[in-house]
């Protein structure tokens, strides 16, 4: 089934849903920034703002029982796969009501119910889990697909290539999604990535594509194709999404002297994923400004209520410290 085959109305609903998901992630992350700056959130926070179209376009192409693995910059992936704002905030604040009972934090959110196998704070560290999940799906004869999110920084890690090699050899239903936001931590990717990114995947015989990661419709359409292909047993795929993180590597990275303010401004004004979709739907007269305003009002309310819920929630009991060390 292609996008064209879907009825226009359903398609519009899906696009508005994707807009809502992106708006929710942005509102969530803006709130994380405030919490962090206000010293209400501990640890580290790596914001996803600017990259929303990647998580949303990818996860909208998945079923609820499909799997994802996430990264240190993972809040967007979790929300896009269906995580609740309340339990996300509770985890970020280290509260018992959080997804990991407050024991994982920002960089380790997992949600079994939505197939989120967990964020991994080791760059490229979840490639094994995602590939193993795909092996499990294949062995069990289920039609599930696994998606491995990672950044351009992970392209330097050996584990990624070890697992891509096996995925290709065994035709596993896994899609490797590279969020290329141009900087691995504080270093422009040109200084760390030799050769061509897609050629690396193609060397294993893996279907590889590149897409504008700021265009949620493009991400979604390409991802659908790769997911359906994997689901049919035609093997793994690699998708590079060209994107940009509006903030620094983490919240404390405020000066960002490794890139120019002009570059940041250009991405924010010319390539913003929310604006891009809103402008397109408006130009096509499928929606007007009020529709988007209402979405922003809704998600802001949801996020605000989530923060209040998390702030009021209790910390884990003392006996939790050595609970769940062993199953």
């Amino acid at each position: 089934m292609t996008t064209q085959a879907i009825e226009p109305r359903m398609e519009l609903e899906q696009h508005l849903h994707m807009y809502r998901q992106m708006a929710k992630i942005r509102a969530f992350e803006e709130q994380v920034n405030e919490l962090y700056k206000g010293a209400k959130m501990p640890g580290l926070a790596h914001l996803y703002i600017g990259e929303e179209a990647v998580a949303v376009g990818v996860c909208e192409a998945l079923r609820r029982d499909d799997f994802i693995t996430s990264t240190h910059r993972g809040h967007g992936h979790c929300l896009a796969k269906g995580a609740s704002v309340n339990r996300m905030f509770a985890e970020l604040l280290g509260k018992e009501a959080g997804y990991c009972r407050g024991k994982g934090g920002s960089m380790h959110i997992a949600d079994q119910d939505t197939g989120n196998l967990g964020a991994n704070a080791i760059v490229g560290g979840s490639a094994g889990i995602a590939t193993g999940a795909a092996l499990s799906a294949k062995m069990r004869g289920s039609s599930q697909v696994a998606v491995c999110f990672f950044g351009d920084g992970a392209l330097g890690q050996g584990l990624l290539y070890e697992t891509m090699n096996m995925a290709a050899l065994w035709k596993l239903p896994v899609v490797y999604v590279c969020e290329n936001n141009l900087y691995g931590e504080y270093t422009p990717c040109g200084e760390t990535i030799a050769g061509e990114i897609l050629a690396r995947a193609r060397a294993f015989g893996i279907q590889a594509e590149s897409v504008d990661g700021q265009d949620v419709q493009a991400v979604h359409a390409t991802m659908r194709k790769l997911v359906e292909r994997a689901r049919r047993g035609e093997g793994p795929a690699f998708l590079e999404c060209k994107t940009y993180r509006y903030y620094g590597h983490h919240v404390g990275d405020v000066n960002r002297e490794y890139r120019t303010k002009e570059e940041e401004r250009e991405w924010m004004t010319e390539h913003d994923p929310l604006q891009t979709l809103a402008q397109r739907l408006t130009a096509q007269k499928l929606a007007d400004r009020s529709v988007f305003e209402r979405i922003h009002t809704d998600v802001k309310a949801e996020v605000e209520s989530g923060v209040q819920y998390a702030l009021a929630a209790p910390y884990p009991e003392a006996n939790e410290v050595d609970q769940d060390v062993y199953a």
Partner: protein
Amino acid sequence: MAVMTYREALNQALREEMRRDPRVFVIGEEVGLYDGAYKVTQGLLKEFGAKRVVDTPICESGFTGVGIGAAMLGLRPVVEMMTFNFSLMAMDQIVNTAAKLHYMSGGQFSVPLVIRGPGGPAAQLAAQHSQSMETYYYHVPGLKVVRPTTPMDAKGLLKSAIRDDNPVIFIESETLYHLKGEVPDDPDFLIPLGQAIVRREGTDVTVVAYMGMMYRALEAAEELAKEGISVELVDPRTLRPMDTETIIGSVRKTHRVVVVEAGAGFAGMGSEIAAFITEQAFDDLDAPVERVTGANAPMPYARNLEKLKTPTTEKILAAVRRVCNANGS
């Protein structure tokens, strides 16, 4: 009871568990077509097929990671390390992911995974093939660590490890694969993880040892019996969780302890055992705990140097005589 080699006992354990539970599968280098580098997986490909006996490229980190993902999602992989030294390539996956996932996810995911293969010193395999890798892993909360000394233990403990819901590091030995012993035929024969065994009862001194060191300690105990020294031999079998109760019980009886381990002594198994004996049974000791360990050096290749690096029967004899001559009472 049948008499079989340690290798055959492991093979039988794998076979029985694969027959019992379709979720169990074997994955690693050379495990299928070649029947295993040390033939532990011999015949499994023939019986269970390529879907359940998965040959991999040489990529310890990659196939361990794949095992972890499969374990999280309904399967029970047994990952083979051709030798445990190579597991260092997979250390991040084992320590950062397998060991922590259950805790980090607030109990949502479990990793019922066995990582098995030979480890410890063998015969002139030199520095990168002779490490006692258990010392790297028993420090990590979330992992269980097993070192089976006899064919019976090899079978009973491997079966328990496969049925356990946690990641289990299961380290065998090249030097023991040919060793023969009695092994129960019962397909439900299990030895629980975390249970030590007293291999020889004695009254004068407790010697704690496992794997090849246990056989040297046995040799020493027989020699010492001729001198009128009665040695009690305790084999922990599982290093984490450790059966401290059995060891402490023996110390309360003999009041003297020697711990033997093949690996380097600094921050080794002996350090931990000496520490908990001091904490729990200080007043029962008539002499300081002695450690006989590998020298604090990488394993040399030359035969004479290798012997100097390794705890020998002579070194065990000397240590036991020292603690028995010490008079703390």
